């Protein structure tokens, strides 16, 4: 019987388990989890602080998930891979053997070597459930919070704790919020909504040095705080892959079948650098849907099936204080931008060579998935379809024949 070993216990690991079980109901699956928790929805850690979910509800799969899938779950840290003996050794010296290994090691917060960081009493990163629980203990109604990083993690953290602290200041070296997914004007709308809800920003500026409860900024400004949250960025966890001689760039390089360059070793999720069809090259796409789909693809292929995942694109749906935004694809400079202002929002479509290559929607995100599918599938559009697409996302973008397949057939 096949021995499947999965290192990591997040979304990619669940995808991998479900992928394996769709193909091989009997093989032995072992999961090594560094966090001592049943698999939970990692992006929900901010919703937990906000009171929009509970520890029970944020389980990513039902309580009997491991049992039902006949998975042996081990809490521990994998420290060594031996590709000749095909084994992984844990910190406690326990050795596990594999026929197929999948690295679902995720990423960890990147903490720059700030001068004086060790003098800060209450400092946190915001990545795991334990981070969230630790931060929760420090929260109080009068606390002044400084968040370094105005990306998805930093801002979701800000929203999550907004009602539970005295004040929040977010700084970022970038000149706008959410700089990885939004352009300046779209970012300004989101920033405005955050500011309306009491969050202050110092953009184009960041902390360079700390002294106890004081941050010294690049601009020369000084910020007093009680709680520091570091959300500068994340780095793929690639240590085991390097030991196993897998090719590693920013993440573990995988093909569209999730194989690494080392035989019998696969990788999936935030630690992997897979094919991004929007730019035609490999890139780390650290988003949850991608982690699941990569994991599933890896699992099927580990179990001897055949699955290809070749249409990944960057895509995000995120909201702050009721203002939603949806984005997908790429935004080449030579693309035509079609813009429509909507009530309290904006819609920007980026069209190139008769295809939708990317979009940003702020406010009304209804049916955004129709646009995302055009991006993912690189659908060729004639003038009539482009005109329909510019109006709003609907199936009227497609020909009657295509539409009848979508609405009249099994899809």
């Amino acid at each position, binding site marked *: 019987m096949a021995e499947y070993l999965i290192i990591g216990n997040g979304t990619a690991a669940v995808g991998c388990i479900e992928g394996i079980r769709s193909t091989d109901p009997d093989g032995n699956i072992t999961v090594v989890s560094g966090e001592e928790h049943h698999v939970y929805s990692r992006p929900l850690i901010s919703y937990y602080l906000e009171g929009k*979910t509970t520890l029970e509800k944020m389980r990513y799969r039902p309580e009997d998930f491991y049992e039902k899938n006949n998975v042996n779950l081990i809490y521990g840290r994998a420290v060594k891979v031996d590709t000749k003996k095909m084994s992984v050794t844990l910190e406690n010296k326990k050795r596990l053997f594999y026929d197929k290994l999948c690295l679902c090691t995720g990423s960890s917060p990147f903490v720059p070597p700030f001068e004086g960081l060790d003098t800060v009493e209450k400092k946190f990163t915001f990545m795991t459930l334990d981070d969230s629980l630790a931060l929760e203990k420090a929260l109080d109604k009068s606390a002044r919070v400084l968040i370094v990083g105005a990306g998805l993690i930093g801002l979701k953290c800000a929203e999550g704790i907004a009602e539970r602290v005295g004040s929040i200041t977010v700084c970022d070296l970038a000149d706008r919020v959410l700089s990885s997914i939004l352009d300046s004007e779209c970012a300004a709308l989101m920033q405005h909504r955050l500011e309306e809800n009491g969050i202050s920003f110092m953009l184009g500026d960041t902390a360079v040095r700390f002294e106890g409860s004081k941050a010294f900024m690049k601009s020369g400004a000084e910020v007093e705080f009680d709680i520091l949250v570091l959300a500068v960025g994340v780095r793929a966890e690639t240590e085991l892959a390097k030991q196993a001689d897998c090719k590693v760039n920013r993440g573990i390089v995988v093909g569209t079948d999730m194989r690494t360059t080392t035989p019998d070793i696969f990788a999936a999720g935030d630690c992997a650098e897979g094919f991004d069809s929007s730019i035609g090259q490999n890139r780390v796409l650290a988003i949850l849907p991608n982690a699941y789909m990569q994991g599933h693809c890896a699992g099927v292929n580990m179990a001897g099936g055949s699955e290809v995942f070749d249409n990944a694109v960057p895509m995000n749906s995120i909201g702050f204080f009721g203002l939603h935004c949806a984005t997908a694809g790429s935004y080449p400079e030579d693309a035509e931008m079609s813009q429509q202002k909507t009530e309290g929002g904006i819609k920007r479509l980026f069209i190139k060579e008769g295809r939708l290559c990317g979009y940003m929607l702020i406010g009304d995100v209804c049916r955004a998935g129709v646009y995302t599918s055009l991006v993912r599938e690189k659908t060729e559009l004639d003038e009539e379809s482009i005109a329909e697409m510019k109006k709003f996302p609907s199936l009227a973008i497609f020909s009657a024949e295509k539409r009848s397949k979508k609405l009249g057939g099994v899809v």
Partner: protein
Amino acid sequence: MKRVYVNEQWCLGCHLCEYNCAFANSGLSDMAKALRDKPIFPRIHVEDSGKIHYAVSCRHCTDPICVKSCIAGAISKVDGTVKIDREKCVGCLTCVLVCPYGAVAPGPSGAAQKCELCLENSCGAPACAAGCPNNAIVYEER
């Protein structure tokens, strides 16, 4: 399994399915109380473009991308029906971001909702199909 299918040549664009859907999922027994002078949140919608009209609702895909994409693990496929656990949903709208049919939308509470074939409300079978005046919406095996 039986699914909802749409034949756009027969659709009058009357939007009756939207009302029947909203009523069926309201949990109320009086249609006026459920729908009159209120914003309604149907799980099927009619798209009108010039002379073309057709209704769109969840396709209950063979390989549903919403299930794979849900950040809360709130969407699952049970016996062929794609379902949303509203208690688990945090309203991030990633399902709206990925559904190629535009068939998922936020409901009144902000949680995402979509057609679940009326299997768990008092209708027991899709109210949109039952009430369609011209059989443009049917519920059958294909």
